[in-house]
């Protein structure tokens, strides 16, 4: 089944049935995934450390059928101020990470590509670590101005800056070299890691614990304000994704062939990189490091519905959101009333899966 991945199964558009066409399966899968996502969202709304009844809140909210006496203020806060923003943010971030992974894998024509390759993660950590360590000293004026939003804003700026730097290095005479970008990405990530390391050295023990928690990722800080800021960026980026689908399908034949097909390859790269940087930057900024969603989700879907990006991208958004929400339910209930960082959950599930994919690929290469 995986062999088909190397060929764009059905990018020959319209017309009659092409052999290996899985667009019917894909459409059905997208429908199913949408239903699944809605179900998981409702389930998440009812699951949590407390026994707050989401149903009561929804009834009160929609139909005013519940009298205020029946509904405690505490339950309302738990459902509307804690769980609901968290679910919406989780769904947005899960979609952003999965779609970004799918776009980058298409762009680099490398199934193991993830947002780390374009410097997003390294830049975001540098911004976040800088804020945690220097927030009380050098960056104190900035921190005073931006208050609790200092860290997400700095992480977002850090991710954008590194991506644009990398992009500038890899682009000569209007042509972006994917190979240069990959190699320069390693160098930039190492440089950012060195700066981050220097900051970690300066950190005191409390800051070190904050750093650890940030790097493990969490949706715990979800607020409506954060959804407004990072959610709008993520939505814009997700809205751009469908326009990339046809181009990415063409690109799977190689850059030269894609050019011959009339695909504006350079513009495709521009838009894809900006989209990914914005989506992942905005995600990492509010949630910290959440690994493996970007790699696991597109892979799983390629196995199921084939590599056609017209279906792969929306399906990735749906499945990414679903899986991250499920991981978050685990993270907030498994050690209740405490909380397990979600990065631990996604990595614990994602890493073995990733290994399995690697081994299967090896098996295919060895055949």
């Amino acid at each position, binding site marked *: 089944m995986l062999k088909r991945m190397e060929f764009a199964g059905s990018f020959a558009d319209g017309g009659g049935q092409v052999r290996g066409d899985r667009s019917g399966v894909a459409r059905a899968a997208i429908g199913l995934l949408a239903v699944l996502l809605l179900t998981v969202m409702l389930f998440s709304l009812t699951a949590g450390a407390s026994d707050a009844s989401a149903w009561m809140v929804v009834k009160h909210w929609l139909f005013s059928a519940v009298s205020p006496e029946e509904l405690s203020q505490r339950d309302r806060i738990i459902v509307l101020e804690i769980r609901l923003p968290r679910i919406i943010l989780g769904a947005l971030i899960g979609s952003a990470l999965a779609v970004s992974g799918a776009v980058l894998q298409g762009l680099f024509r490398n199934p193991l590509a993830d947002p780390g390759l374009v410097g997003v993660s390294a830049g975001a950590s540098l911004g976040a670590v800088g804020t945690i360590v220097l927030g009380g000293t050098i960056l104190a004026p900035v921190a005073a101005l931006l208050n609790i939003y200092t860290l997400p804003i700095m992480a977002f700026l850090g991710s954008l800056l590194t991506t644009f730097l990398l992009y500038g290095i890899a682009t000569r005479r209007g042509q972006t070299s994917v190979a240069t970008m990959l190699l320069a990405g390693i160098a930039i990530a190492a440089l950012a890691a060195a700066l981050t390391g220097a900051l970690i050295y300066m950190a005191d023990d409390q800051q070190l614990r904050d750093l650890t928690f940030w790097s493990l990722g969490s949706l715990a*800080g979800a*607020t409506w304000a954060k959804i407004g800021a990072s959610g709008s960026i993520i939505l814009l980026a997700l809205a751009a994704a469908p326009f990339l689908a046809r181009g990415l399908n063409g690109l799977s034949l190689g850059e030269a062939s894609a050019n011959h097909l009339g695909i504006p390859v350079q513009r495709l790269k521009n838009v894809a990189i900006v989209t990914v940087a914005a989506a992942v930057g905005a995600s990492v900024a509010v949630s910290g490091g959440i690994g493996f969603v970007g790699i696991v989700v597109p892979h799983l879907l390629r196995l199921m519905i084939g590599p056609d990006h017209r279906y792969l991208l929306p399906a990735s958004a749906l499945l990414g959101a679903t899986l991250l929400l499920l991981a978050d339910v685990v993270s907030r209930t498994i050690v209740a009333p405490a*909380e397990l960082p979600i990065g631990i959950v996604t990595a614990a599930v994602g890493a073995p899966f990733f290994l399995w994919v690697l081994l299967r690929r090896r098996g295919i290469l060895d055949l």
Partner: protein
Amino acid sequence: MDKGLHRLAGISMRAGRAALLFSMLAMAVSSATTTSALAEETTRIEDSSRLISIGGSLTEIVYALGEEKRLVARDSTSLYPPEAGKLPDVGYMRALSPEGVLSVNPSGILLLEGSGPREALDVLKKASVPMVVVPERFTGQGVLDKIHGVGKALGIQDKADKLAASVGADLAAAEKAASSVKERKRILFILSMQGDRIMASGKNTAANGIIELAGGVNAIDGYEGYKQLTDEAIGKAAPDVILMMDRGGNHAVSPEQIFGNPAFAGTPVARTKKLVRMDALYLLGFGPRTAKAAHDLSVALYGDAAEH
């Protein structure tokens, strides 16, 4: 081809600037509310029948006051007395989850300074759970302030005064003993040793506080917090005594391992081989047991003579 990107970059930059401006405005409004929320002085919690204690030293104080029946949950740093470990754990004090905290249905929360994150506290405030933030200082007075703060929050000042008086007397005795020490020993507190790499405590740490209370001198004064030391810095620190946390079992670093480290060659401690180990929370908690910990440390450093 690049035009598209330039246009996009232009648009995103403008959008970014607008977003930044907007968020700054929003911040200006919200910062006023959040800081005042945290600056709240230690006051009384109206209904203190179902409390969560966040911070090991605060939990210890509640137990020392004999008010543990009021506790419904604790944070993961609250490990003493051992009974406290049986309470539900709402997580690490700086990474609290608001729903987890609300799920034990608290009537009030005691928080040690530094608890968070801020978002969690904001939501808890919205849910109108009374919160009292108790300041953290690594001095004898800091311990007494904590006791008074907890007493006030629970509405049992009399009991707190009594506890503070007895802890205060012990602290005063420890301080007197410390001031009578003629030759202060230089103490190197080693937080951890990974191979030959040594993490030691500088200024502004609990370790520094307890060393001073016990009449010692922190051998490291060049930095704040806990950092890894170079071999030369260890030579320059010239410690007389090494102080470590007692982890027990197989986790403990053996004396051979420590004194076998060439970095210590030529320092006074290489001759005396004086190594003091104490329980982490006892030594560094800055709670009601701190006076005794300072005394124990002082005895370990100078012998029983320091007692008189």
